[in-house]
């Protein structure tokens, strides 16, 4: 038997890892189709606020989750409209999504809850075992589904073709923009679920900017995982463990100041990128706009 403190650490590792895995797997599908979406941070944040507001208003986890997916997909639509249909630069468009999400969630939250009014608590998705609930199951299923879809289906092959050689895919009669659009929406939906997990599971409140870089860490995980589902999951667990340990040290009254401990995920991400980013081969047409002939 493992002892109680270890079990707690494992559970908290899974809790931190799951939202990262969900967001990263969604981003993976987008990137394999050639869409670099740096706006998933903002889509997670929008998902978190939507889940909080709808969850508080209805008390239903399911409705909260649906609202989170809808809010994140709305931002994904906006991103797609500019990055895919207007051929605006994807990095600038994604950054604009992030700024928009920060401003819009902040404005809506402050308008709905003026200073001094009591905040409700979002309904929680319970755990069947420490660290195990619907979100964990969803992340695992998503990894299996994405692996099967990309590797074993005709649609997955078409999607990868669009990411590797958009021109060639186009010549084969695949609608590049439509595939990328679908992949972007899927990535947005996953980011929305990841954001919902933050308020329906990891905490029961919404705080402005509460994603605190998780979307960017998820982006880094795709690179760290070398565009492979299982290595992305492993990376998410590594980051989950780092976060869990860091909070454990804080709670134990470590000699290190908490500000330095809070730095761990970001420094670890940079280190991991420095070690692995150069080695993973990105889809050849990643972030390259496609101009349909017509």
């Amino acid at each position, binding site marked *: 038997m493992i002892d109680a403190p270890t079990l707690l650490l494992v559970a908290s590792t899974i809790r931190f890892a799951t939202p990262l895995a969900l967001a990263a797997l969604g981003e993976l599908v987008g990137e394999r189709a050639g869409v670099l979406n740096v706006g998933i941070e903002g889509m997670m944040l929008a998902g978190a606020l939507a889940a909080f507001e709808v969850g508080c208003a209805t008390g239903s986890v399911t409705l909260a989750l649906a609202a989170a997916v809808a809010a994140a997909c709305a931002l994904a639509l906006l991103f797609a409209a500019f990055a895919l249909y207007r051929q605006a630069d994807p990095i600038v468009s994604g*950054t604009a999504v992030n700024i928009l999400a920060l401003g819009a969630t902040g404005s809506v939250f402050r308008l709905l809850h003026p200073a001094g009014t009591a905040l409700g608590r979002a309904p929680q998705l319970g755990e069947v075992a420490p660290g195990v609930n619907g979100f964990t199951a969803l992340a695992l299923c998503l990894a299996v589904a994405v692996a099967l879809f990309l590797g074993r289906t005709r649609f997955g092959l078409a999607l990868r073709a669009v990411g590797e050689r958009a021109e060639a895919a186009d010549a084969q009669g695949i609608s590049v923009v439509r595939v990328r659009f679908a992949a972007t929406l899927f990535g947005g939906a996953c980011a929305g679920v990841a954001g919902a997990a933050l308020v329906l599971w990891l905490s029961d409140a919404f705080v402005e900017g509460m994603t605190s870089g998780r979307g960017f860490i998820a982006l880094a995980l795709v690179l760290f995982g070398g565009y492979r589902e299982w290595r992305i999951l492993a990376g998410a667990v590594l980051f989950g463990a780092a976060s869990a340990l860091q909070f454990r040290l804080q709670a134990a009254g470590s000699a290190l100041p908490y500000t330095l401990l809070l730095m761990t995920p970001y420094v670890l991400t*940079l280190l991991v990128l420095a070690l692995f980013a150069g080695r993973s081969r990105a889809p050849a047409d990643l972030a390259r706009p496609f101009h349909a002939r017509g």
Partner: protein
Amino acid sequence: MTWPRQLLQSVAAAAVAIAVAGVALALLGADPLRALGALVGGAFGDSLALETTAVRAGPLLLVGLGVALSFRCGIWNIGGEGQLNGGALAATALVTRGLGPEPGVVALPLALLAGALAGAAWAALAALLRIHRGVSEVLSTILLNFIAALLVAWAVHGPLQEASGAYPQSDAFPDAARLALLPGMSRAHVGLVLAAALPFALWVFLFRSAAGLRLRAVGFSPDAARYAAVSPERETLRVLVISGALAGLAGALEVTGVTGRLFENLGSGYGFTAIAVALLARLHPIGVLPAAVVFAALAAGSGAMQRAAAVPSVVVQVIEALVIFFSVGFALPRRGGG
């Protein structure tokens, strides 16, 4: 495109962004016209409002210039915020811990230099990661933003905290390390004159010097630049160093000219707003000057707007994002096109 057309498009992008935000506010039950009135009053209504707008424009101008320069060269420096924090931190460390209580006339130039160097070093880290380890500067500069903000938090809770230990902030700077106010002004400091001169200096550098031509060449086509014996790697480092130095200088100007001490969230939002500034300026150094004033006015007026019309000040970020969308989505010439 000729510049009057670019100017027209920028004005249209800003106007449409403000109109869309107004409609959204009306849908949420606020009074957008009253909010706009309060905002304009808060930004330009009296001399103090005007000075506040000018003071806010300074850092936006400097960070925005750095963003414009790097984006023009195809380098996505999203790290203005972190570089500004790094500059403010270095300047504060030097002034409150390195120079003693009577620092003399060298204090100010040294503090500004320390800020620019620290900002440059922070950005150079991202450049080296990209050149030697293949790490996209988009991710590294964003991650370095988080790290810099936490470094400032650590410093003002720890080694740089004021002697009394009352608040998480540094000691107040001695007078010798404070920038003088402009004659007859109560907030606007002489650093703003330096900031306002820099767009012209950068314009000369970019469009009238061989080094500037090399930078722009990399932006047009890294491969073509390589054939012309221009090393994209070296230019990447150079662009990020200049861009980071500008943001670091902004941080140093903020602590020496405005706050007189370091605390958390000093540069809150300047880094992201600067991206909107640069894009509204169509990445042109001279255009950054009016664009910085536009966003400084939004920031300066947002407090008054919140008080008078109960519209949250963060709505300004929505306007920033919309300006970015409208600037890149509708106005830039589209390549190819079949």
